[in-house]
């Protein structure tokens, strides 16, 4: 199942070390969002087995003081 990970970070998303997602074979897509007043925003779209795996995968990324929201993508 797919999860959208929204990240609000003081650093650009490209500066974050997300290769663990890539090397793990779960990163489908990534992109920036229009900057927010509280910082730079972006997203990762990952394909994992369940929410717990999504959380564990994101926990492996060394993030600065970020706000992270993980939402499951609805299956149409």
């Amino acid at each position, binding site marked *: 199942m797919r999860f959208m990970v929204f990240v609000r970070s003081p650093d650009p998303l490209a500066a974050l070390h997300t290769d663990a997602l890539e090397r*793990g*074979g779960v990163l489908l897509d990534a992109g920036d969002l229009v900057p927010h007043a509280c910082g730079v925003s972006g997203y990762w779209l990952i394909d994992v087995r369940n929410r717990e795996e999504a959380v564990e995968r994101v926990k*492996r990324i060394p993030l600065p003081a970020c706000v992270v929201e993980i939402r499951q993508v609805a299956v149409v």
Partner: protein
Amino acid sequence: MGATTSVHRTIDAVWRMESAKVIAALARYTRDVGLAEEMAQDALVAALEQWPEEGVPKNPGAWLMTTAKRRAIDQIRRRENFNRKVEEIGRDVQEATPDASEGIDDEIGDDLLSLIFTACHPVLGTEARVALTLKMLGGLKTEEIARAFLVSDSTVAQRIVRAKKALADAGVPFEVPEGPELQTRLASVLEVLYLIFNEGYSATQGDDWMRPELCAEALRLGRVLAELAPKEAEVHSLVALMEIQASRSKARTGPGGEPVLLLEQDRGKWDWLLIGRGLKALERAEALNQPPGPYYVQAALAACHGRARRPEDTDWQRIATLYEVLGQISPSPIVELNRAVALSMAYGPAAGLALVDEISGAKALQGYHLLPSVRGDFLLKLGRTKEAKAEFEKAASLTRNERERTLLLERAAGC
């Protein structure tokens, strides 16, 4: 969800992410994949016992690794070659702690690659390679593999035990092969991944949940392999092929589970994100400028359909050319039959019929229902309805699929 269940789901997730790395690193120390896998399993059991009580550690991967290494030491101590091996790995264990802050991702790439090549070693039979790959690299449990392949848990367990023994008996080294051996061994790895993918993609029976899981796992392992072996065009090609095929999974069956042919599929149901990823992987393969392999050609064929938003946009001339290339790499009358279909779409039914008549004597096509089915289609388009009817009836008598037989008889009746 209870707290214990939640912890167990977290342990499952951690295991899925870390088990291959733990096994790979242990196998490097012990030079014994079987022992490494057993010790990693022991660490999992310890986690299942301790984490619900003590909480999930801050660095669960390092915890599993340290615990597994300690178990390995204990195990080796019981073995007669204790003195030699303990010296090799003892130092390493003494330095590690369960709360080690560093992850186990760093420098693990070569070990993981070695593990992939070992699990897919040609000394093993196909079923053993598949089971071992899913177990050691996918982190799947024995019962999950059994459900996916519609066999008993004990059958899978035996396959895995025998496979590990066969690797040990054959003295398979834990390493990434080099030189000419690399290509043979890589072909074996790719074959296993594509078999796993097809098992999930092609099957029309079995557990609804586990089958798509096989496709997803094969695709994930393919992506992992592409990161580990970025200079191998066939790896990127296989990833491209699987991404594009997976993109059609929601469109390839009708409401009653009946198969929907490619040209009749609702392309709005195709997953265009996966198609985009597939096309990108194909570009990575092409950029390496290596001679086209079978996965490259198949991926390029899939891409021809993937690029077409409507069936009439399909580049049939390129498809016909690609089938010709595929026929040179892997000669087969089935490939030629596919080429005949492409020729018919590109240049008209007469071109397709000429090739079909040329190959109709091939032994491999005798009794193959698609030969008369395709020939009937060409004849019908050429207005030779009486001959077309006979071909459809012949095809209906040969197919074992009830739905297909009904369809063919309807076509015969309509001639």
